[in-house]
């Protein structure tokens, strides 16, 4: 219902020509601050790779933090394009300003694929233990997991490319390098080309959606659950995917804040985008607890010794510090802050909560992956008979964590130099769908809802 607060509706004001000119100018010109950050990130990445080199060939117990970092990066960066995909399907206009920024994370998938290769080699053989590949050959996880991740990366890149074709054409026409001409593939903006692009986006979006859910499923079960004898938790892959969606929203809120605050896109990213994302962010934060609780209560109530050991391992035993941080950051603090409307309408506050949730998500992955990689006795065990001690990070682990996270940010920043981080055509389209008019005595926004 209406309120008595009179204020102008927040309508995107820039003319289509201005949008094209402005976004292209911002993409091409990068200041010294940008290159400074790129340099620092590159150095940190090298340090991370040195740490990774020191860890390769180590026993599995030593690779837990590497696995946790990979899972964290996969969770945050490769789930991020889902924000664009899902809300394009539901035709929400608020996603337009962040659609490209979200899809651009698909490029980080390439980086994730590279750092996945050593982890896949380190994954213990499935002989003598249960995996989700019940009767399949012992190499199943290695081959199929790689195939799934590689397919997801290809699909993500396809999604990014097909969503950016009109913008590549704009860059080509505004005197960009020859690469844009190749990427635009003769785009002229004919009705047929637009129709084809819509179809391509729909198909790739649907495939990406299905792909990311199933990749979460195989990664979570093959790289943590099946390493712990007796950990049979049917909700775990869904928890992994759901917490991935929460982390993806956190990543996008943080990215949107950075673009708005430091990238010069304040006019493009309205409060409505933050507000809409924050409501879903709140819902996913509550679901985080619900999914965790569903698993916990079933095990706790069952009182079976093997299940109690699993609960000890991943929640209340050697990694209780990680569990408490994850529980507080991903659920308690997040929910009790996000329920307040003024907070949901404050980009700075939302960015802070998003950062907190990302930290919580990292510790969540530590409790799940470091704990499972610390279980060394895998053969012929149907139940976890003992709870291994805490594995604390050593210098190479810290180098890996910092270096790989820096590497992911570096890849994203470099990609944003080539591909506009703001979708020109989507913003121009938004301009067409927004109007303002008087409703009784109040000026309101009228939003076109095409079929």
């Amino acid at each position, binding site marked *: 219902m209406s309120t008595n607060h009179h204020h102008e509706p927040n309508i995107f004001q820039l003319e289509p020509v201005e949008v094209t000119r402005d976004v292209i100018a911002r993409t091409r010109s990068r200041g010294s601050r940008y290159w400074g950050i790129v340099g620092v990130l590159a150095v940190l990445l090298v340090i991370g790779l040195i740490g990774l080199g020191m860890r390769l060939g180590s026993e599995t117990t030593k690779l837990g933090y590497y696995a946790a970092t990979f899972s964290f990066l996969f969770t945050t960066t490769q789930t991020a394009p889902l924000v664009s995909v899902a809300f394009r399907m539901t035709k929400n206009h608020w996603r337009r300003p962040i659609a490209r920024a979200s899809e651009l994370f698909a490029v980080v998938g390439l980086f994730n694929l590279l750092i996945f290769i050593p982890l896949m080699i380190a994954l213990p053989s499935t002989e003598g233990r249960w995996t989700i590949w*019940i009767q399949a050959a012992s190499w199943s996880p290695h081959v199929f997991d790689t195939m799934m991740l590689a397919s997801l990366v290809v699909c993500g890149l396809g999604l990014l490319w097909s969503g950016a074709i009109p913008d590549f054409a704009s860059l080509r026409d505004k005197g960009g390098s020859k690469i844009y001409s190749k990427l635009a593939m003769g785009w002229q903006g004919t009705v047929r080309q637009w129709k084809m692009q819509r179809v391509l986006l729909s198909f790739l979006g649907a495939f990406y959606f299905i792909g990311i859910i199933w990749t979460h499923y195989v990664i979570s079960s093959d790289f943590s659950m099946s390493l712990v004898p007796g950990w049979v938790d*049917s909700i775990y892959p869904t928890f992994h995917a759901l917490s991935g969606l929460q982390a993806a929203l956190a990543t996008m809120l943080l990215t949107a804040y950075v673009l708005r605050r430091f990238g010069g896109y304040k006019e493009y990213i309205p409060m409505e985008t933050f507000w809409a994302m924050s409501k879903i962010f709140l819902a996913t934060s509550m679901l985080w607890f619900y999914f965790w609780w569903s698993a916990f209560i*079933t095990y706790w109530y069952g009182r079976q010794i093997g299940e109690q050991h699993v609960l000890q391992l991943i929640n209340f035993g050697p990694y209780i510090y990680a569990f408490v941080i994850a529980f507080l950051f991903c659920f308690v603090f997040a929910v009790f802050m996000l329920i307040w409307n003024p907070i949901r309408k404050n980009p700075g506050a939302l960015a802070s909560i998003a950062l907190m949730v990302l930290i919580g998500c990292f510790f969540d992955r530590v409790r799940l992956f470091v704990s499972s990689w610390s279980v060394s006795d895998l053969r012929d065990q149907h139940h976890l008979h003992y709870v291994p001690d805490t594995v604390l990070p050593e210098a190479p682990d810290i180098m890996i964590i910092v270096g790989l996270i820096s590497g992911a940010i570096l890849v994203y920043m470099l990609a944003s130099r080539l591909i506009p981080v703001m979708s020109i055509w989507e913003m121009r389209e938004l301009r067409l769908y927004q109007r303002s008019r008087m409703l009784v005595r109040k000026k309101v926004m009228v*939003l076109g809802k095409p079929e």
Partner: protein
Amino acid sequence: MQDRKALTDKQINDTLTNSILRTPLHWYILTGFFAVIVLMGFVAVGILANRGLGMTGMNRPVYWGFFITNFVFWIGISHAGVMLSAILRLAQAEWRRPATRAAEVLTVFALGTAAMMPIVHLGRMWRFYWVFPYDWARGIWPDIRSPLVWDPHALSTYLIGSSLFIFVALIPDFAVLRDKTTGMAHQIYGALSMGFRGSVRQWRLQAIAGIILSALLLPVFVSVHSIVSWDFGMAMAIPAWHTTIFAPYFVIGAVHSGVAGVITVLILLRWLFRWDDFIRREHIDALGRLLFVVANAWLFFFALEFMFGLYHQEGTEVVVRDLWLFQTPWNVIFLLFIFTGYIIPVPMWLFRSVRRSFPLMLFTTILVNIGMWLERFLLIIPSMGRKHSFTFVWGDFAPSPIELMIVTATFALVFMLMLLFAKAFPLIPIFDIKEGNVLRDEIQIGRRTVQAVIREE
């Protein structure tokens, strides 16, 4: 394309109060028909109370049969109300408007029907009050650690919350009815409308109450079916029940069957009361798309539940999957369930022409609920009937005529209650439809006219 027709406020008032003020003849015929079946159901309950549970097909070790299956099914149907009303209201989905009231009312009636099932199942149904936590006169407390005790509390909370939710949303419509009636009806609607005159303050309070109740009901809605799932999930001895995914799996299954149930009811009401201008193709199209997403999410959870039963290759778990897939009659029921619950309807919803066809949507949504009823049956009966050691007698389950009669009567009861409600109160929210008209607009883009909505900050 949207096929809406511009209606004035008076036309909306007249059409939507028509079912109350001028009842069609087929309303009496249908209500009478359902009332006869309900009466037969009550007679069956009476026989059961008199003769005991031996009248049912339950036998050792299958202690839960049709009644509990039906209980879980109706709890599932009840999930559509909040799903459609609260979530879509919070998400400001405009197409929700004609569907919300019917969904909410279906929630309350389905919940009430569900609540009757465990009571009937008790055999000594007059002792149902034993679940409540008091000990005077009996000297014992119910075990509050038991999910079977959590159930009635979750269910009654949901019932009270949903009823309040409907009542708050009905207040402006009561006022319309008060102003259109005379005599005793005027007095009753006047009392129910609680002095509503449509002032700005009253509208604001009504809207705020609706939003707060929506937000409060959402966790209750999730908790109810989760707790129902824990009736099963907390049992260690029954294979295929002790699994961590049961809570969300039950919830998504409930939403699947509940939304399908709402579409069925809406299409039938449209036909019965000639609500062609209100329940339009665009509405069932939107509901169909929602159902498509929900159905696929349900399939994902079902796949996880199934696969993780096999994952650790425990003998008892494998036996239950073997029963589902390879042992007659369970494999026939399994095939029926998967075909009616997913394989036939969901691919059909991919086609826009199907989603916009009333007869096809009626057909597919009825199929879904046949499938979802069978799903609950399969979850309960084969797991209990599995042969295991140290049991001195083996019985199988075959429903008796008494059970069949009671279960049939529950369906008749819900339809009859919906019809009775439609006789006394508007099943499409009048004020919501009018608000939708105010917030509706069109914009011109090039040569094309595009439907638009007014967005309030």
